[in-house]
């Protein structure tokens, strides 16, 4: 029995070593690309194409990250804090740049390389890859939200939040929801940020100068933005489960017909096309609603940038691979197969992309007008502060919450607050 146990123990301890000994087969290095799972397989295809084109210099292996941005970040920052040498390329949510760069976890893009990956890139997405004057990542995909609606229920699309809610309230029960991301996660901060920007203010000023960064939140516009949340959350057209809703739920609400309006990414179009093709002709889209009538809205800005880990043992190959992954051809594949909006402006004129995005021009215009979330190294703390003060949506009180939000964000910027 003891001998058996010893043998078992040896075998078990050796097992992971054997498993870890794969890799580096054909002379070139294996690069690990950590990125969210992309259902259509366009990332996998790009990785394969770049590996093949490298003529044996490197092979890109996909390492799937969890579903939500919050979980993805949590996985990555722990590896980076542990100086993990198996992370080479990271598919970074656009909001991580300042934090990762500030902590010294990224290698900057410089010289010809930087020029290569910034040429022809839309200004908004490019700005999300920069921090304190340097380029820290290569923009891969952009993203933004549109207002999706059913033409049969709403012949004339509304332009403001108040109109959206009023129009929904006029519709019959059970088919009148306004579906937004109200769960306590990053998606909620996305909503809040766009409302604030559309109202004419922002969360943080001097975001990229940590010593001077402060909560902005001009009083009147901030109250106006929060009043939208309050009105929707306390209206009968809000989903009873609003405070737990994510992109999945808001998309599902469109598919099931429960929602008359949904604020969501272009994947709604792909979902309706693939899962409910009969409804596709009825699906309408328009620009993100305004908060102040006549004042152009500032839609959300999402997307993925490619960063190179400071602890990667193969930076040269990693830079080359990342530059290949974000190439115009690969962005085209991503747009056509995966519905991922390109960051290269000319990508939207590609005939194949035009076919994939009947709303391509609106998408490009929305991205150009989009409001980025604050580029502070303490961004994740700021986001938690927003969720802490303003969640659940039905509890929002515009008069009381603005000063409290300001105070909490100031604490969060100092990263000293419990959140």
């Amino acid at each position: 029995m003891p001998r058996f146990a010893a043998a078992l123990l040896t075998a078990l301890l050796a097992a992971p070593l054997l498993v870890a000994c794969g890799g580096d087969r054909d002379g070139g290095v294996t690069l690990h690309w950590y990125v969210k799972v992309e259902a259509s397989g366009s990332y996998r295809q790009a990785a394969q194409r770049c590996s093949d084109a490298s003529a044996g210099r490197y092979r890109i292996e996909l390492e799937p990250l969890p579903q939500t941005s919050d979980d993805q970040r949590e996985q990555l920052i722990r590896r980076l804090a542990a100086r993990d040498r198996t992370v080479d390329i990271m598919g970074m949510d656009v909001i991580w740049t300042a934090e990762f760069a500030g902590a010294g976890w990224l290698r900057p893009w410089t010289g010809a390389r930087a020029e290569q990956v910034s040429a022809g890139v839309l200004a908004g997405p490019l700005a999300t890859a920069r921090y304190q004057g340097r380029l820290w990542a290569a923009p891969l995909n952009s993203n933004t939200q549109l207002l999706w609606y059913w033409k049969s229920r709403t012949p004339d699309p509304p332009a403001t939040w108040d109109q959206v809610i009023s129009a929904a309230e006029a519709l019959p029960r059970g088919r009148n929801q306004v579906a937004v991301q109200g769960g306590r996660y990053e998606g909620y901060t996305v909503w809040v940020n766009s409302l604030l920007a559309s109202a004419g203010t922002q969360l943080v000023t001097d975001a990229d100068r940590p010593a001077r960064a402060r909560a902005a939140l001009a009083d009147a516009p901030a109250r106006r933005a929060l009043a939208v949340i309050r009105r929707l959350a306390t209206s009968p057209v809000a989903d009873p489960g609003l405070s737990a809703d994510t992109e999945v739920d808001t998309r599902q609400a469109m598919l099931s017909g429960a929602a008359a309006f949904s604020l969501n990414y272009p994947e709604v179009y792909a979902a309706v096309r693939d899962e409910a093709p009969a409804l596709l002709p009825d699906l309408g889209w328009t620009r993100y609603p305004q908060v102040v009538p006549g004042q152009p809205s500032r839609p959300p800005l999402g997307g993925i940038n490619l960063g190179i880990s400071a602890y990667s043992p193969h930076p040269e190959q990693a830079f080359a691979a990342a530059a290949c992954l974000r190439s115009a051809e690969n962005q085209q594949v991503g747009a056509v197969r995966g519905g991922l909006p390109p960051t290269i402006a000319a990508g939207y004129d590609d005939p194949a992309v035009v076919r994939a995005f009947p709303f391509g021009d609106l998408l490009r215009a929305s991205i150009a007008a989009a409001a980025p979330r604050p580029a502070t190294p303490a961004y994740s703390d700021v986001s938690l502060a927003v969720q802490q003060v303003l969640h659940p949506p039905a509890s929002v009180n515009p008069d009381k919450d603005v000063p409290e939000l300001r105070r909490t964000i100031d604490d969060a910027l100092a990263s000293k607050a419990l959140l």
Partner: protein
Amino acid sequence: MTEAPPQPPRTRRKRRPRAGRRTAWLLTAPAVVVMLAVGAYPVGYAIWLSLQRYDLRFPSQRGFVGLGNYAAVLGARVFWTDLGATAVITAIAVTAELVLGFAIALTLRRGLAGRRAVHAALLLPYGIITVVAAFAWQYAATPDLSFLSGRAWLGERWSSFAVVIATEVWKTTPLAALLLLAGLAAVPEELMDTAKMDGATAWQRFRRVMLPGIRPVLLVVLLYRTLDSVRVFDTVFIQTNGANGTETVSLLAYDQLAGRLNLGLGSAVSVLLFLLSAAIALGFVWVFRADLRELYRPRPVEPDEPDPEDVW
């Protein structure tokens, strides 16, 4: 429980002089060393970290801040909200587990047929991974999936608590029931019969005979489940991730440590949670010391039973 039972005078036979203290220590030392190294050392390190400003995202700002982190934690409303949520879950779940556990134990004691099946069924929730149980209940509370109800249970505070607590109760009541059943075995059947013949009603028999008999076991279950519930994490993490005011202190500590890499603040929350557990345990042992002594009092020694001192 940390109280040693009263030591009887050392007048018993001396056994096996060869296998003396040294052997005993050699046998015990590895386990004790491991427990100290992997248990006590990290706790000490947590205390040390809690006295520093130490955020791995801002490594250059590391420094000693004394009790600054504790001030930040105790001064934050979220800490007290989370403490409240933890208290709500603990109070309701533990009460429900004791009541239901007792009912199940009584049923099992009376169980005529199918006793084995019920026993096996009880091991079902016990053996299942907590995360799996949490998913099962979460899906049962999700309107798009559930066979039970079309209500968005996890959409607001008190119904979220209901789902979390139901999961906890489902998962842990079986163990409470088994422990109480074992305790019931110590209540002599004859005593109950005598009481019955004396004309005591069922309630009186329960109050006067059964309850005093299993009181010590009941207290052990209460203590064990309270300590377990105060650190509740898995269920809440899966089902709500702290939304709608259901965040517990464990989750709060985890968020500071894993989500923000703020080891200083996170350790301060951890240490406070640790102190809370310790205070509950010590306070409990102090208040109920007489009952616990009863539980750990050795039975009359049979001829070849070991030293009462051996029994711990």
